[in-house]
């Protein structure tokens, strides 16, 4: 488990987070995922449909063997698998009230 204090109040991309990271979604920014497999507007809609909405709690649960990719993320009450490339569009922060 990485030292989480370094992430406190810092906004990072979910695609760059380590396993064990917990935080809140602060924004979806399609510029962060410029090499994703979809145009930004479509990627954003798919992320929202899977529950990645501002304010939702996320936790990075697992990652793959090669290059830590893909990742499994707990979003509110569901677990979503996605690649780090696309997860870069999700900006997260360890805000107040996150244990």
């Amino acid at each position, binding site marked *: 488990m990485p030292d989480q204090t370094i992430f406190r109040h810092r906004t990072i991309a979910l695609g760059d987070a380590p396993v064990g990271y917990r935080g809140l979604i602060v924004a979806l920014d399609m510029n962060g995922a410029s090499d994703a497999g979809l145009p930004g507007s479509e990627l954003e*809609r798919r992320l929202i449909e899977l529950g990645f909405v501002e304010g939702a709690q996320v936790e990075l649960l697992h990652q793959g063997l*090669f290059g830590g990719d893909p990742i*499994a993320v707990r979003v509110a009450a569901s677990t*979503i*698998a996605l690649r780090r*490339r696309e997860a870069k569009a999700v900006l997260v922060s360890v805000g107040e009230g996150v244990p």
Partner: protein
Amino acid sequence: MNGSVDLAPPPGAPGPLSSQSARVVALVGNPNCGKTALFNALTGSRQKVANYPGVTVEKKTGQLTTPGGRAIRIVDLPGTYSLRARSPDEEITRDVVLGRLSGDVTPDLIVCVADASNLRLALRLVLELKRVGRPVLLSLNMMDIARKRGIDIDVEKLSAALGLPVVSSVAVRRGGTEGLLAELDRVLSREMAHQPSDWHAPDARELRGTQREADRLLQLVLRNEGRLDPGTAKADAILLHPVAGIVILLAILFVMFQAVFAWARPLMDLISDGFTWFGALVGSAPLPEVLRSFLKDGVIAGVGSVIVFLPQIIILFFFILLLEDLGYMARAAFLMDKIMGGAGLHGRAFIPLLSSFACAIPGIMATRVIDDRRDRLTTILVAPLMTCSARIPVYTLIISAFIPDREVWGFVGLQGLVMFGLYACGIVGALTVSFVVKRLFWRTTAGEPFMLELPDYKIPQAKSLALGIWARALAFLKRAGTTILSMMILIWVLASFPTPPEGATEPAIDYSFAATIGHAIEPVTKPLGFNWQINVALIPGMAAREVAVGALGTIYAIDGGEEAAEKIGQVLTGQWSLATALALLAWYIFAPQCASTLAVIRRETGGWKWMAVTFFYMLALAYAAALLVYQVATALGAG
């Protein structure tokens, strides 16, 4: 073949409910919400599986009679997160819900099925469905699991807040659908006015707004959020572990593979023997020679050569459906995504390709788990390159005849090594082709993103499993009964006519169209080292690869067919050079020598185009490989 398959025509059941009077109820829900289990619980064996016209999306409908005596036709729609369709399956869901599909599926009522333990995404879908203007009923499924986890939902408050009837259900328990059935009776007895639809494909802002609204509702009605499923968390700690997870996956695959090969063998032998016996029976019947041959060598041998794969298909789908119902399939895709992605394939392509080692037919049928059309097409294109079990008799025959049985490096058998090399060539070939297709055909490097929900693990239901296998087996037999059989008959005609003249001394096939073709293409196959006898054997070998072994026996006039494989081997050693034998092996790695596979590709892709693409690219690869092998081997002195 868009007709419907009756899963179980109920014998002596009260007359079929006429579709005019039956109300249509469509089941809509997120993937993994237990919708299919609910469908099975409601309709039992009174289901039909067919295709929607023009597409390969499965159309599942079933009949039921409510306690109030109301006839209902239930349509089980493909799972989706939104009506904003992104795949052919989701387009069907959208079109049915919006009433755009004419015919018998325009719903009078939409039942939105939600996993009670995972309501958040489902509520957004409900809010979207409300805009369609048709009556909507929300069924909170898997209530038992939710309660066990301490989740407490205020159903009445939810119903009031949504302005919709809400019921809870437990699809997998007897009596678990009583509440839903009673509500169906109540809702359908009312006069149901359809509002005009004000649905349109939402943009990101609207989706976000709807999700916020859903989150607000959720806070309102959840008296207790409960805890996460502890079992799933514990299992995933091991099953999704970067190293242990892959080891376990490989172990599962090993068992599956063993089962498909070993467990199916006795049954396959039984079916094969049965057809041989039946063929012999017909062969000795007092019938005109042509009719006898048509029945024995065309119809019975043709049907038999297809049905013999049924045990493998049943066992394979048993495992696939079991892993799917357990919730493991999404995890397998997660574990394999990076490896498959390197070759331009989707993580979900893994199971279909693996299945293709047994037989490309179930493998191609299993590509239905891939949502994206391009990813699915790529997988279908390369699946026949995986070394299927029908290649084994051919490989075994040639290897045992031409490759010396000795050891290399002190411990590895040379024959086994060659066999391994043939498998490896198939795999490398498939990965290379998919890589090229992805880069050249689709002109994309990024590809469809890998995004899917990892559902909580669940205990599979035997009934659901049995119904699923039954539907797959029937779909396969139906295909076998039409397209494949007609190809078999064509091949029989080629190999049987014209009949030999009076007093002919050579085997009958030498006078047939097949022989004419074999001679005619000799100049083309000469650079590969193939003589006309091989060319002739390749034609009946189109029916199924292993038939070529028996055909070689016929051409070289050896009695006993496949049983005489050893004798054939001895004859071949005298007739062919090593270079020819190696070239034939190379040919068999790539050649599209299977009419059944081509027919299934046509079915699954919905047209001739991709079947033709597969046939010609494989033919080109086979020719190039055999040419290379023969020329190199000859240059090295093996000619």
